[in-house]
């Protein structure tokens, strides 16, 4: 059971995920359509460099889905590792290494090639 105090504290500190979780719920409800009675599972792919914390998404999901057909549904998070590349020298950073400057040539032209996404992969629904 979450106490009011903890809830308040969490809302004040990790609002970042609340907004994105709301966007996720909107998309899930839109895709479920009007015939769906219950959403059981929501599968998402979360990139390591997306800037979102999976525990927080899970936490908010349980709160904001109350009184919707997604209430009680489970969010399955598939983590995708992040990868960066230097556009100046072509150097590929090792998986999971986040940097703003290329360790090989010193250029700032490093970009995230993989792992910046939050993809709604699929939903499992019940119609009866």
């Amino acid at each position, binding site marked *: 059971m979450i106490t009011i105090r903890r809830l308040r504290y969490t*809302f*004040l500190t990790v*609002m*970042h995920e*609340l*907004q*994105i979780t709301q*966007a*996720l719920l909107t*998309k899930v409800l839109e*895709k*479920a359509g009007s015939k769906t009675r219950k959403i*059981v599972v929501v599968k*998402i792919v979360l990139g390591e460099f*997306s*800037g979102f914390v999976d525990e927080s998404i899970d936490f908010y999901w349980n709160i904001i889905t109350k009184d919707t057909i997604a209430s009680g549904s489970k969010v399955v998070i598939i983590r995708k590792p992040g990868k960066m590349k230097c556009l100046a020298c072509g150097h590929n950073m090792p998986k999971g290494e986040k940097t*703003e*400057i290329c360790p090989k040539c*010193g250029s*700032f032209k490093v970009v995230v090639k993989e792992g*910046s*996404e*939050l*993809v*709604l*992969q*699929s*939903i*499992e*629904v*019940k*119609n*009866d």
Partner: protein
Amino acid sequence: MTKTISINENILSENDKLALKIRKKLDENNIFSINVMASPGAGKTSLINQTIEKLKKKLRIAVIDGDVVDIDLKKMTHHGIPTALANTGGACHMDSVMMERALDSFPLSEIDLLIVENVGNLICPASFDLGTHKNVVIASVPEGDDKPYKYPAMFKGADVLLLNKVDYLDKEPFNRSYFRKGVERLNENLEFFELSCKTGEGVDTWLDWLGKNLL
């Protein structure tokens, strides 16, 4: 009976799609817009106020303030310009949904310059395109010279960097070359101006840049 619906849609790209739509709408109405980002207290409201004060006779300006309360907004409303509060509900950044909602209240055909004051934060606003044309980041001398090293994404995404409160340079241990080096290693195309909203020093250089972009 359960069934699986395959979707495969990137939730984060929804913001970018809407931002593109907003940018198009602004372009159609010949509006140039800036997204002003900085930490709390760096001088976003002061800079915007100075800008309005100096340009309001020449340009039709509107302001969107991403905030929970209208304290900053009240400081701008007295200029007699259109203003809107994009109520973030305490969130750490603005997104394009808030931006679109705020824009709805404006007479777009009667605006030349749209200034967006984002939430005071050097991390989250950097990741959300609002559909504006240029990112303006303000750093200030009392905050310290290490900000580009601590918040690289914000400085990397900036088009213009303003170092505010230069009147404090002789009162603070602020190493200008260390600060500049930190910025240049992240973003060599950045326009950089030093100013003080309090004394007015350097403000004209910023206004010149703005003027050039409005042509």
